[in-house]
């Protein structure tokens, strides 16, 4: 017979109170692991959801950017390709170039791989007298659009002026009372008015548009043009105009490029704004998830000590009841010559055994439940990258085992220090 054997016999004889104390440790250890596991699962799920959202957002952003690009395509800008020797101040002043370049340039542009310019419109423009009616006009010779051969045919933005016809500006039409279908003579050549433009409030109002060939003949400039209008140039970045200039310079080195109207910045800003808003929205989601995560962690940090303290109190009460029931046993053992420490070991062993067994069972149950919570998450249950770290499991086992001893210590100590004489006397 030994004190530990006696303690074991006592446990076997009083299973119910032992199981009650053990259950408390099972709950403390199990719930700690389950709470930690659940927190980790929530974190992992939140991270997974955020990652999926981010992925989806990136996809959507790309799509949106594409849609935005398409939607803002109409905001593309127009260019004028002028001869290099053209004085720009004069060009701005008169709205047309005085210098000329070969008409062939437009063909070279069309054959080039310049993807940025879609519609090419060669013109020959001169301010001159309409001698038949003695009026100053701006004569524009145009042959219609030259398709960009690398981009495939597109619906033309500007329809060509048909052979033998003429288009007149508003002021001319009004002052001369010209009508569509009316035959007029310009520099001795007969044209039928095919269209009268509405009022534009610009020099266009005194403009006359005729086929390019006719204009070259009338102005005695065969095979010459003085500008190529490049319409709906596609934006390819914030420095698009520089890029286009560089591209044009490769094919037409003795020309210069002037931007007629710019929407590049607005377009770029719109796209950047969409991107920024999406990133900010994602950031807000991440912050909200982090806040939720820290709130859960705070709750867990509060719940676990409460559960452990409650379980400790439970073990304390079970141990107190047990030692009070065993007063006469303690007294007779002390009378038989047992030292106080031997009695302490005898009384404390059940708390210790309850702690160890409870910690092992609680750990196993906690891991099983945590495993269930894991669901389809592809993470190991225990490990460095797992739901629960080995350190946590080991610490829980150790603390669970100690919980029994700590909670049962005081009742056992008090009982072992009792005066056996007074108990035996009262008995």
């Amino acid at each position, binding site marked *: 017979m030994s004190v530990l054997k006696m303690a074991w016999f006592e446990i076997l*004889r009083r299973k119910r109170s032992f199981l009650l104390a053990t259950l408390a440790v099972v709950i403390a250890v199990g719930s700690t692991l389950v709470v930690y596991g659940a927190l980790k699962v929530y974190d992992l799920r939140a991270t997974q959801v955020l990652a999926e959202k981010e992925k989806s957002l990136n996809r959507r952003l790309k799509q949106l950017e594409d849609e935005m690009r398409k939607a803002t395509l109409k905001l593309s800008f127009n260019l004028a390709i002028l001869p290099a020797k053209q004085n720009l101040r004069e060009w701005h002043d008169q709205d047309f170039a005085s210098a000329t370049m070969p008409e062939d340039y437009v063909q070279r542009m069309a054959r080039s791989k310049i993807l940025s310019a879609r519609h090419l419109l060669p013109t020959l423009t001169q301010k001159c007298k309409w001698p038949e009616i003695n009026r100053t006009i701006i004569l524009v010779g145009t042959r219609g659009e030259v398709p960009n051969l690398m981009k495939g045919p597109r619906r033309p933005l500007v329809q060509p002026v048909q052979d033998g016809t003429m288009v007149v500006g508003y002021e001319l039409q009004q002052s001369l009372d010209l009508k569509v279908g009316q035959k007029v003579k310009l520099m001795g050549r007969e044209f039928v008015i095919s269209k009268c433009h509405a009022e534009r409030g610009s020099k266009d109002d005194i403009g006359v548009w005729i086929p390019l060939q006719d204009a070259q003949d009338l102005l005695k400039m065969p095979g010459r043009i003085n500008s190529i209008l490049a319409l709906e140039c596609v934006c390819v970045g914030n420095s698009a105009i520089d890029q286009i200039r560089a591209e044009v310079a490769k094919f037409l080195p003795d020309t210069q490029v002037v931007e007629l109207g710019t929407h590049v910045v607005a377009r770029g800003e719109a796209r950047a704004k969409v991107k920024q808003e999406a990133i900010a929205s994602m950031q807000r989601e991440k912050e909200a998830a982090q806040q939720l995560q820290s709130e859960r962690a705070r709750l867990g940090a509060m719940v676990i000590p409460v559960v452990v303290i409650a379980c400790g109190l439970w073990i304390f009460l079970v141990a107190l009841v047990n030692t009070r029931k065993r007063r006469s046993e303690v007294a007779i053992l002390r009378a038989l010559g047992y*030292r106080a420490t031997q009695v302490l070991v005898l009384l404390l062993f059940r708390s210790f055994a309850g702690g160890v067994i409870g910690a092992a069972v609680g750990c196993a149950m906690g891991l099983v439940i945590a495993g269930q919570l894991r669901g389809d998450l592809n993470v190991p249950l225990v490990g460095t990258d797992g739901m629960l770290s080995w350190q946590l499991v080991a610490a829980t086992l150790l603390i669970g085992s100690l919980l029994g001893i700590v909670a049962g210590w005081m009742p056992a100590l008090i009982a072992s220090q009792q005066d056996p004489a007074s108990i035996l006397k009262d008995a």
Partner: protein
Amino acid sequence: MLKLDQVSKVYTSHHQEVRAVDRMSLDIQAGEAVALQGPSGCGKTTMLLMSCALLRPTSGTVLIEGNDPYALSANQRSAFRARHVGFVFQQFHLVPYLNVRQNILTANVPARRADAQQRAAKLIQQFRLEARAKHVPAELSVGEKQRVALARAVFNQPALVLADEPTGNLDPDNARIVLDALRQYADEGAAVLLVTHDPVAAARAHRIVHLDKGHVVEE
């Protein structure tokens, strides 16, 4: 064997002193059984507890086999009790979760006898408990319980056995068995101090001492 010299025990209760035993002297020799009698509250149990090194007297000296147990440290006194003193109580005080054999062997935990199993077997046979050896106290009759308590008391063959109303709850047959055993143990050379109200039990002792109000009034 047991010598009490001018031993007094004073309890303080509610700021009042109660003198349970007052300058009492008693000498019990080896091989002698002494019965201690007296009315309730005369100090019998207090005297018994002082005699077995469990209750320190307020004054006076207790000597067991010539040694003063109260001069020893608590642990030494526990070891001393295990070797030199055996107890039997009216309430048996058996360990409820141990069977008969294990209850007897509880006396061996502090003593560590090499022949513990043989000694337990011999006592089980001596007290006619063979059939009950594996039963726990709840399954025993009161007579059997007291026999187990007696076997435990004499397990370490102490020089002094103290019995507090050992037959108080027993029927005559069981009382006789217990008294015979105590008397036999005294006859074998030990000192036995028996506290009892029962005149039949007292008559089995070699000597009867009467106590009243903490004093020996008659021997």
